[in-house]
């Protein structure tokens, strides 16, 4: 399992770099969707199955749809795009930066012997998602409903003509 997770992490990083650096926005959006999908796989392997479903369907699906529709509604000339935004040039440092920071991070963690902050404080619980959400986190449910309603108002307000 650890091997698959590691491979997925690697893919996530690679596609994240693609999403950030690519000059074509469409490809960026698709790379982002791929990042989401690999994250979904990792979530599945970490036994967060409901979360994995949401991640794959909503994040890699809905957010991609939103960004692609935004891109297509506001399209600019393609050649102009590359000249104007210079994304590739401006982001050229990113891979090197990431490699450098990655090594630095690993170095710091290993030399300073930093542990993940886990104190055995919490007892493992068998609480399922529905119990957690509906019984113990009622406020989150209220919050989700309200935030969706707010989103709906936002759509009404922002997309309405004039």
């Amino acid at each position, binding site marked *: 399992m650890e091997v698959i997770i590691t491979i997925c992490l690697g893919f996530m990083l690679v596609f994240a770099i693609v999403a950030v650096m690519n000059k074509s926005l469409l490809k960026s959006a698709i790379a982002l969707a791929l990042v989401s999908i690999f994250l979904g796989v990792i979530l599945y392997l970490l036994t967060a199955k409901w979360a994995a479903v949401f991640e794959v369907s909503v994040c890699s699906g809905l957010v991609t749809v939103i960004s692609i529709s935004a891109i297509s509604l506001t399209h600019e000339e393609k050649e102009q795009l590359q000249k104007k935004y210079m994304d590739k040039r401006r982001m050229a440092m990113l891979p090197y930066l990431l490699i450098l920071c990655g090594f630095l991070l690993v170095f710091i963690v290993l030399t300073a012997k930093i542990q993940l902050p886990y104190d055995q404080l919490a007892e493992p619980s068998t609480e399922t998602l529905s119990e957690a959400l509906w*019984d113990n986190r009622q406020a989150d449910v209220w919050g989700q409903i309200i935030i969706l309603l707010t989103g709906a108002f936002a759509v009404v307000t922002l997309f309405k003509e004039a």
Partner: protein
Amino acid sequence: MRALQYVSMLFVIIPLTALIVCSLIKRSRQNAAFYLLSAFAAAQVGLALYGLMLFNSLNISEYSFGFHITQAVADVFTLKPASLVMLLCIGLVSFTSLLVAYKTMPANKKLSYLRLLSALIIGMNGIVLVNDLFTMYLFIEIIGISSFVLISTTKTEEGLESAFIYLVMSSLASIMLLTGLAFIFMRTGSLKFEYLIAINNTSAEVSQNALTYLSYILVISGLLIKTGAVPFHSWLPDAHQSADTSVSVLLSGIVIKAAGVYCLMRVTDIFGNLYAIRLSLAILGVITIAVGAMFALHQNHFKRILAYSSVSQMGYMLLGISAGGILGFIGTMLHIFNHAVFKSTLFTNAAALHEEVHTLDIDKLGGLQKQMPITATTSLIAFLSTAGIPPLSGFWSKLLIIIALWKANFIGFAAAALVLSIFTAAYFLRLQMNVFWGQTPEHLQSIKEVKGTIRFAEIMLTIITIAVGLGFPFILLFLEASGII
């Protein structure tokens, strides 16, 4: 106890009802919704005062409640005297905002404004009632999203731009906040306040972990962005300047405090009042006071000066939090309340000027004392209160904060806070001189004093400023009796 149960539930139910009513109502009936929401906001003020009295008579320090649909549902909200003070401010500022919006908001935007306002009120009520870090994050997001849309409601170029900047900055805040929360969650397995406080009080030595400290830093930085502390403040002046004035009242009056300062206060408490956290808040507080004031000295837009003044005042609240202890707590709460009152007054004055003169550029204004006496006087009183001149309300909260800093051994910071209050006086004097004093230019001779709801709001808030300043001893005694102190 029964009364307290109903009161506390009403704080959730009232704005929820408002939200549902506003989402269902027809556009032709929007004025009815306006009156309803105003009544609700006023009711919230009354309920908060009543709640404080109940706490006083019941002699308890907090009250947990939830909506028990089945037996298994846990208590998810906690009411404290401090949250009642916040609820009072929320009600008051929302009421003011409604009074201002009645005049300033274009008719075709009114309904969206009402809907988003009720969502915003739910977010703010939620944030002061929650007892869980993650739920706190969720309500911060609700506040954030409704604010972005409220700022861009008028769809001016400036409004959209500032909403965009605000959105990106608060996304950064969310990322920091959530990363921090993830590590805290990793360590403790729960994000409930009481649980975290218990852990931090019992096992101090286990927290000696670099990632735990990193998580604290990230959570605090995230909240500082929401507060608008320097150097996290860049979004704040833009947003406050370009939103409709009724929205600026909300943003400056309560949003940055509910989503920023109040949460910081809770979080500092939860993290065990670490010296490192308090020191960083104190240093950033002084920087914020100084830089905010220096920026304010150079602005030419009435609302932008007020926005930078808000930045500067946030610094005092950060200092109050960093002082810690009961005195710092009281000082910060009172400063939140006072700032809510006097900054709303000043923004209401801005609305009055905009209604009558149609510009907020202070170079084009001047000598309006004779033409708009009420606006000029209320602005002067609010300014004196901001500068901390007794016996107005602002003096007391600043005094308490400075005494608290002194007692917490932050003597240098206390002195800095004292000295930097000169700047406050400086930029407000400049404002007052350029707008209200001096010669009246030719084209402003025919200006009339503003009428209706805006005038009412100005007078109401000024009376509160003066009354709180004069009646401060009694307020402090009452707070002492009701168990906040």
